[in-house]
């Protein structure tokens, strides 16, 4: 039989009460923070997983911001191309009018004046800005990419030169995945993708075509004007192709945005699953631990009570 001494029962009581208080403190912390993992040692692998999920979620949020910024830029570009197409279609109407036999030099000159205005508007479209950045200038975003030398007043159409850069800028929409959010202005408006200074086969320099139309109208040259119609058709096709391209980029961004939203929701749910405390379970555990502690304290208070001393006369 073991001798049970006075100090022993007290030591055991204190040891157990301390252990219970510690467990209770852990549960109270979980209730207060709402988290199951409050420090890495609570669940090292869970904490590492939570850290990864948080890093992933931060990246997803950033990719969403990139998508938003890219989409906004593409909307500007799409608007500029739409407006340019309208201008070209109007120019074609003018060319068709100018090519009819009923026109004379004076009426062709009136048409030419409108072409002048279309030309200026088109130049401003090509120098379109998005929050201060020239969207068709590639990396040279702070200076107008298209500059015109000379004016219609001198008798010849102005010469437009491309001062921008033909790089198309990407944004990142996921790990290793990027979407282009600008277009090469030289290719769009001058049909020159390879930078050799002249349009590729089947492409046209929009400013050149409008300039030639203007020259034909001013010179009262019906044939030259008639020729412009076909060239304007080609220009229209060229701009429509670029619009399709923009549409494809926007579509990719839109899909990525939706996907990222889903991913964000999913990551948040997974993070919660890893680190959040189950409130119902934690609170019932808290109540249970409080009751146990109370019982232990009651028992300890009695331990100090009875001894033979109490019963000696």
């Amino acid at each position, binding site marked *: 039989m073991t001798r049970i001494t006075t100090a*022993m029962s007290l030591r055991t009581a204190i040891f157990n009460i301390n252990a219970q208080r510690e467990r209770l403190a852990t549960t109270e912390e979980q209730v207060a923070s709402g988290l199951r993992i409050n420090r890495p040692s609570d669940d090292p692998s869970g904490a590492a997983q939570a850290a990864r999920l948080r890093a992933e979620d931060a990246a997803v949020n950033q990719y969403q*911001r990139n998508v938003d910024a890219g989409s906004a830029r593409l909307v500007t570009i799409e608007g500029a191309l739409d407006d340019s197409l309208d201008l070209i279609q109007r120019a074609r109407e003018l060319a068709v009018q100018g090519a009819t036999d009923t026109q004379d030099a004076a009426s062709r000159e009136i048409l030419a004046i409108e072409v002048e205005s279309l030309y200026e508007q088109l130049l401003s479209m090509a120098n379109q800005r998005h929050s201060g950045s*020239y969207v068709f200038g590639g990396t040279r*975003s702070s200076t107008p990419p298209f500059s015109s030398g000379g004016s219609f007043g001198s008798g010849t159409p102005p010469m437009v030169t491309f001062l921008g850069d033909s790089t198309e*800028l990407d944004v990142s929409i996921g*790990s290793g995945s990027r979407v282009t959010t600008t277009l090469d202005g030289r290719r769009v408006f001058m049909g020159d993708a390879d930078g050799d200074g002249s349009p590729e086969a089947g492409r046209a320099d929009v400013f050149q075509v409008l300039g030639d139309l203007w020259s034909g109208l001013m010179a009262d040259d019906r044939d030259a004007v008639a020729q412009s119609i076909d060239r304007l058709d080609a220009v229209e096709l060229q701009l429509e192709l670029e619009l399709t391209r923009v549409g494809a980029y926007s579509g990719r961004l839109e899909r990525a945005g939706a996907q990222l939203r889903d991913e964000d929701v999913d990551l948040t749910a997974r993070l919660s699953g890893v680190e959040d405390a189950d409130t119902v379970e934690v609170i019932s555990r808290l109540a249970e631990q409080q009751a146990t502690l109370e019982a232990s304290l009651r028992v300890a208070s009695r331990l100090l009570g009875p001894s033979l001393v109490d019963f000696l006369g």
Partner: protein
Amino acid sequence: MGGIFSILGTASRALAVNQNGLAVVSHNTANVNTPGYTRQRQVTAAGAPIQDPRGAIGTGVEQTSIDRVSDELLFRQLVSEGSRGAALDVEVGALAHIEDVLNEQSGNGLAADLSALFDGFDDLTSASVPGAPVEREAVRGAAETLIGTLHRIDERLRTIQSDADAAVVVAVDEINALADRIAALNLDIVRAEVTAPANDLRDTRDQLVRELSKKVGITSFEQETGSLTVMISGGLTLVENGSSRNLVAEADPTHPFDPRFSRVLFDDGAGRRDVTATLREGELGGQLRVRDEIVADAIRDVDAIAFTLADQINVVHAAGIGLDGTVGNFFASPATVEDAARDLALDPSITASADAIAAGTTFDPGDNRNALALAALRDTSTPLFVPGDPPGPATGPDRTLLDQIAVSTARIGTEARAASGAQQAQHQLLNELENRRDAMSGVSLDEEMIDLIRLEAAYQANARVISTVDGLLDNVLALL
């Protein structure tokens, strides 16, 4: 045949013995709450009889000794487990500190700040204002915050480390003082035990030995004279008879972290030898392990992250061109992995102007190609630089930096969890051993009360013998 007076003698000796017994009970009862007190027990025997051919007549009771009810084996276990427990207490405390420093659970910390820097690079890629002045400032701000966090983490870890070093010096002083007191008690005990067991002196010595065992791992054995020999890990004799040796804490110029940190030397009178590496237990062993292993590893982890971060970003950054035409590093290149976290700073060109941030591969204001490459580092896993790598290639595990932070934190968490599990088990074991010691050596008030009653009754009975003898004597005297 014994005379009537010899009965008186027997009874009066019995009174004295029972009175002594009561004194032992009172001593035990008085010390019921004294830590380390060992209950004492009066040992009695029948006195040597007077030999007579008609029958030997007893001479009553004799007190042969007052014993101490102790178990040396149990005591040794308490000593060695106490050493282990004290080391674990120190380690668990330090690990909890480190965990606090590296805790990312609040969503703040190194990983969040690093994510913010990558966010900054991403924002730079999608900036719409040419030259992205706001986004450049934001990148620089995020980098400064990250550097600040690394500095703060490093500083707090180093504080824990130097606190451990200070505790080493204190522990050495305490160990020396305890060794001196144990040696002095050895002399007292040997001297006292020429006559009788020095129970209370032994209790005091045991208590000091247990205190010493909490400071440093020791083994002890008792010599026949009653003197206790105490040895520290490595078999070096700290206390023998009346003399004690000293431990010396002195600055270690070769310490990899701080030349002011102490090493522990054992001074055997003739010379000193370095015992730092052999001290694993007790507070001293625990603090040394905290200083040289646990915190040291954590600091190295953060250094490795800081160095790899600077290297990764610099390589990509230097491939690009700043808005102002600058080509160069983003972070000032740390020379070694060691102290990389403490020394990390922005490259002076970046500090001078945010336009030096190489967002592009040209200095065009809209060029975002290099910023894209910088932002992509978020998901790029590269081998981690570990101490000793530079100037050679990185030889650490191949991970993304964010992953590495998660792994480092989890490592500390695992270590803290294991240590606190071991600590709990150790406390349980110590509690169990204390209970076993108590079961053997502790005072039970019930028992003492029973002894009190028993001795009181015996005393009364012997007093009755005396009064009876007194009656007999009266009868005899009446005859005169």
